[in-house]
C-alpha cells in the first residue's frame, strides 16, 4: 500500500540514513552469481574427506530432502496459536520423544542453538539446581567450546576447572578428577566420545564418584544407536550436537542443540518444550508448555533468554530418525564403526604413524600420531585432493605441546576408493618427510 503519505516525518533530519548499496539483481542473475561462488567451494560429501567429530557429512535420504523443504513447516513461526500449528507441535513432540528414547532421559526440550551453547546452558542449569558455581570440564576438549563455556558462566561468576586425560587410554584421568571433585562442584562434564575420539568405560560409574555434583554428558546422538544411553548410567543432563542426525553440514550451521534432563530438573530447564494435552472435544492436541520458565513471561528471572531456537532442525532430525528406524540407525552406526576401525588399522601400517593413538575403544573417529607435523601432511593430502582429518594441536598446547596429532573421521558418503587413496598417499610420505 502506498497512498503517498509520508509516514517517516517523525524521524529527525540529522538521523536520516539512505542505503548506499547496489541495485537489486534479477533472479536469474542471483542464481548465476551464487552458483559461481558455490563452485569455488570444495564439497566434502561423497569425497575423500576425513573431517568429522561433532559435525559429520551425512547421506541425506531423498525423502528427507522432500520433508525438509515442506513450505508450511519451513515458513511457520513459533506455535503461539497451537490450534493452527498442530503439525509443527506434533513433529517437535516426536523429536523430543525420539531423542528421549536415544538418550534414555525423561525430558528432551524442543532444541537449543547447538552443542557448544548447549554446554553453556547446561552449566547454568546445574548452577540453578545445586546453587553452586564450580564446574569440572575435560582439558582435552574443543577450545572454542571451552571459551563458550567460560562466557556462559561469566554471567553468574561461575568457575571452571579442567581435569586431565589418560596419556595412554585417552579417557578421563580419574585420579585427577577425584582430586578436583569437592562439595563445591555443581556439575562434572564428560564427553562420549570425547574430543580425542575415545569411548570411555569409566564414565559408566562416574555418577558415584562425583558426590552431589550433577553429571553432564556430551554425546554424539548417532552413536547412541549402538552405545549405552547416558540416562542408563546416571546422567542428569545430556547435551550434544544434533547435526549428525540428517542435517546438511552447511559450513557449520544451522545446527541443533540437544538438551535432555531428568524429570527433577525440568522446571529449571532452558528452552521451549512441547507437551501433550487435549482440544475442546477431548481430542489429542499439543502445545508449548511450562512457559513460565521463559523470557516472555519471566523476563529477567527466566531460566534462559532463548526465544528462537532450531525448531526446524529438530523436525528434520526427527524425520531422519523416523526414516531410518532403530534398525537403520544401528546399521549406519555399525558401518561407521567398522570403517573407522579398518581405516585405523591401515593407517597404522604406514611408517611412523600410530593409529589409533589411544588404547580405549572408539566409534567413528580416532586420533592419529604422525611422523612429521600434521600441517605438512594435511598440505600434501590437499595436493592429492584429499581433505585430511582435523588437527588436534589446539588441544595439545603449552608444556609438551604437540603438532603431530589429528582426528580422522569416517562417514558413509566417503567412497571406497578414497580410503585406499588416503593410505597410499600416507605410505608415500615417509620418502619425502622426516
Amino acid at each position, binding site marked *: 500500500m502506498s497512498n503517498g503519505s509520508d509516514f517517516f516525518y517523525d524521524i529527525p533530519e540529522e538521523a536520516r540514513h539512505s542505503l548506499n548499496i547496489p541495485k537489486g539483481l534479477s533472479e536469474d542473475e542471483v542464481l548465476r552469481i551464487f552458483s559461481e561462488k558455490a563452485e569455488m567451494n570444495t564439497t566434502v560429501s561423497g569425497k575423500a574427506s576425513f573431517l568429522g567429530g561433532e559435525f559429520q557429512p551425512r547421506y541425506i535420504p531423498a525423502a528427507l530432502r522432500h520433508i525438509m523443504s515442506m513450505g508450511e513447516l519451513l515458513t511457520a513461526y513459533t506455535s503461539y496459536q497451537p490450534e493452527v500449528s498442530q503439525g509443527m507441535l506434533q513433529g517437535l513432540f516426536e523429536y523430543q520423544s525420539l531423542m528421549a528414547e536415544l538418550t534414555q532421559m525423561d525430558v528432551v526440550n524442543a532444541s537449543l542453538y547447538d552443542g557448544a551453547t548447549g554446554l553453556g546452558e547446561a552449566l547454568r542449569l546445574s548452577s540453578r539446581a545445586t546453587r553452586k558455581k564450580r564446574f569440572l570440564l575435560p582439558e582435552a576438549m574443543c577450545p572454542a567450546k571451552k571459551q563458550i563455556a567460560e562466557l556462559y558462566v561469566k554471567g553468574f561468576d561461575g568457575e571452571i576447572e579442567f581435569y586431565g586425560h589418560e596419556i595412554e587410554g585417552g579417557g578421563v584421568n580419574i585420579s585427577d578428577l577425584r582430586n578436583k571433585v569437592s562439595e563445591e562442584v555443581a556439575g562434572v562434564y564428560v564427553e562420549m566420545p570425547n574430543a580425542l575420539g575415545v569411548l570411555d568405560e569409566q564414565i559408566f560409574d562416574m555418577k558415584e564418584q562425583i558426590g552431589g555434583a550433577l553429571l553432564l554428558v556430551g554425546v554424539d546422538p548417532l552413536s547412541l544407536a549402538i552405545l549405552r544411553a547416558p540416562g542408563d548410567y546416571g546422567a542428569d543432563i545430556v547435551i550434544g550436537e544434533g547435526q549428525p542426525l540428517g542435517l546438511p553440514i552447511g559450513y557449520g550451521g544451522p545446527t541443533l542443540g540437544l538438551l535432555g534432563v531428568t524429570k527433577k530438573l525440568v*522446571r529449571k530447564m532452558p528452552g521451549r518444550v512441547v507437551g501433550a494435552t487435549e482440544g475442546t472435544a477431548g481430542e489429542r492436541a499439543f502445545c508449548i*508448555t511450562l*512457559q*513460565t520458565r521463559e523470557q516472555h*513471561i*519471566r523476563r529477567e*528471572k527466566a531460566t534462559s533468554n532463548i526465544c528462537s531456537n532450531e525448531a526446524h532442525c529438530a523436525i528434520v532430525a526427527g524425520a531422519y530418525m523416523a526414516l531410518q528406524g532403530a534398525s537403520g540407525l544401528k546399521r549406519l552406526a555399525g558401518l561407521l564403526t567398522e570403517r573407522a576401525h579398518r581405516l585405523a588399522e591401515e593407517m597404522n601400517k604406514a611408517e611412523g604413524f600410530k593409529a589409533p593413538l589411544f588404547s580405549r575403544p572408539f566409534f567413528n573417529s580416532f586420533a592419529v600420531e604422525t611422523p612429521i607435523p600434521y600441517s605438512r601432511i594435511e598440505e600434501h593430502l590437499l595436493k592429492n585432493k584429499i581433505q585430511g582429518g582435523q588437527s588436534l594441536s589446539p588441544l595439545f598446547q603449552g608444556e609438551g605441546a604437540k603438532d603431530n596429532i589429528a582426528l580422522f573421521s569416517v562417514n558413509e558418503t566417503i567412497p571406497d576408493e578414497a580410503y585406499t587413496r588416503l593410505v597410499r598417499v600416507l605410505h608415500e610420505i615417509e620418502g619425502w618427510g622426516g
Partner: protein
Amino acid sequence: MMSKIDESCKYTETDEWVNVTGNKARIGITDYAQHKLNDLTYVDLPEIGMKVSKGEPLLVVESVKSAADINAPISGTVIEVNEELEDNAETINKDPYAKGWIVVMELEAPDELDSLLDASAYAKKIGE
C-alpha cells in the same frame, strides 16, 4: 465477582493470608488473588527450614502464562509445606483458605502481626 474472605485470618496488601496459632502461622493466598491468577498449575514450594524475613521472596505460584512471587508476610522459618500442592496446584483455586494452605512458618517477631490487615480492612482494600 465477590471474593471470599476468612474472618479468622490476617492479610497483607499483596493478597496473602496469615492464620496464627501460638507462635505458628499458616500462610496462603486469598480467594481474590487466586481469581486474579486464574487456573494455577504449579507451586514452587520452599524448602523446610528456610529462614526468611518479612517481604522477602518465599515461593512462586504459576498459571499457564504468569508466575507470581509470593513474599513472606512475616519473618520466620518454614516448618511445614503443603505437599498436596505439588501435584494439585488447583487446590488453591478450589479452597484457598483451607485445603489450599501453602506453608506453615514459625514466627520470629510476633509483633510484626500488628502491621497486617484484619478481614474488614482487607475487604476494603480489594474494594468489596
